[in-house]
């Protein structure tokens, strides 16, 4: 690995961190430095567990990849989103990815909104991916899933009336970060990933003042999303 390549990896990551983005951390609850075998096994975990429910997969494996003594990483642009993830032999995954809503930024200023469906679908993908890792025994008996929305001051939550019309449902956020966290047994993660995702998505909506649509409608939208497999 050249110095230039390492430098490009770091500057790419720093550029994502400087912008509004998703920050996802998954890990077992018990730390074992060498929980996973080889780096090949780690690549295989990511590739076999990634979730492809739409034109973007989660997490995306980019052209730029790197590896260290106990981790593998990948970063780049896909579908207008910048992403970086690093997967450790301990089973920990750290993922930062810019908001899909920001792909059409004009004059450098991000659109001051987040789409509620984008939030629901991304959280659903994160939990589905975590469940698949859990099923491959990556986490051991228990795991933790933390999802943050960072640098979101001033953002509003948008929802649809009749597609593709969107309207504002809530006031702008005054908090810079929204975080949701789940920790528990992998049997629950593997068996209830969709419900857990729904709960976490609703907790994000709560940060904006409440869910923009009924629980029944959220469940229905998520069910249709998951059926795309």
């Amino acid at each position, binding site marked *: 690995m050249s110095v230039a390549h390492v430098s490009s990896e770091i500057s790419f*990551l720093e550029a994502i961190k400087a912008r509004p983005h998703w920050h996802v*951390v998954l890990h077992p609850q018990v*730390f074992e430095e060498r929980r996973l075998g080889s780096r090949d096994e780690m690549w295989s975990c990511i590739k076999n567990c990634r979730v492809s429910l739409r034109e973007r997969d989660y997490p995306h494996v980019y052209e730029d990849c790197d590896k260290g003594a106990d981790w593998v990483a990948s970063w780049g642009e896909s579908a207008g989103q910048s992403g*970086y993830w690093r997967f*450790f032999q301990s089973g920990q995954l750290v993922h930062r990815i810019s908001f899909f809503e920001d792909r059409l930024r004009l004059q450098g200023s991000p659109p001051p909104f987040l789409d509620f469906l984008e939030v629901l679908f991304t959280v659903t993908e994160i939990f589905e991916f975590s469940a698949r890792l859990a099923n491959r025994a990556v986490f051991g008996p228990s795991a933790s899933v933390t999802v943050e929305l960072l640098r979101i001051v001033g953002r509003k939550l948008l929802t649809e009336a009749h597609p593709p019309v969107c309207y504002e449902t809530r006031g702008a956020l005054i908090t810079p970060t929204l975080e949701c966290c789940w920790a528990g047994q992998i049997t629950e993660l593997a068996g209830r990933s969709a419900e857990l995702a729904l709960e976490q998505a609703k907790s994000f909506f709560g940060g904006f003042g409440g869910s923009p649509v009924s629980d029944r409608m959220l469940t229905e939208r998520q069910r249709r999303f998951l059926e795309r497999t």
Partner: protein
Amino acid sequence: MADAETLRRLVRLRREDRFLEYKESGAWNDLKDKIAKTALGMANIRDGGTIVLGVSERSGQFEPEGVSTEHLATYHSDEVQDYIHRFADPYVRTELQPFEDGNRSFLAIVVHRTASRVGLLPEVAAETSDAASFEKQREGL
């Protein structure tokens, strides 16, 4: 018990220290783990410490925005005391002191120093150690 003027000075300090930590307005259920962790650390400091609720951090600057009435209502001294006690041995004594500065409300959680060093209960210590290892591993990412 600290007097209100001392607590107001802590707000106006706008700088955290080992004995002083700010939290932005939030309900007890949302902040209890962070508060417990901070309180355990403060209990081992010579004069204890104070957690002040109602001060937000914006781009590295501390802003005394106050704590909302709705959030304030979720803090009950017995509940706070019991929750922190679940994690520590010996007992960590805390006091809740609501106070005002201008037209804004704040809540101080005063953490008293314990006579002997506070240790985490074994099961909590193990969890904390695992969490710290993961945190260290992802440092800088």
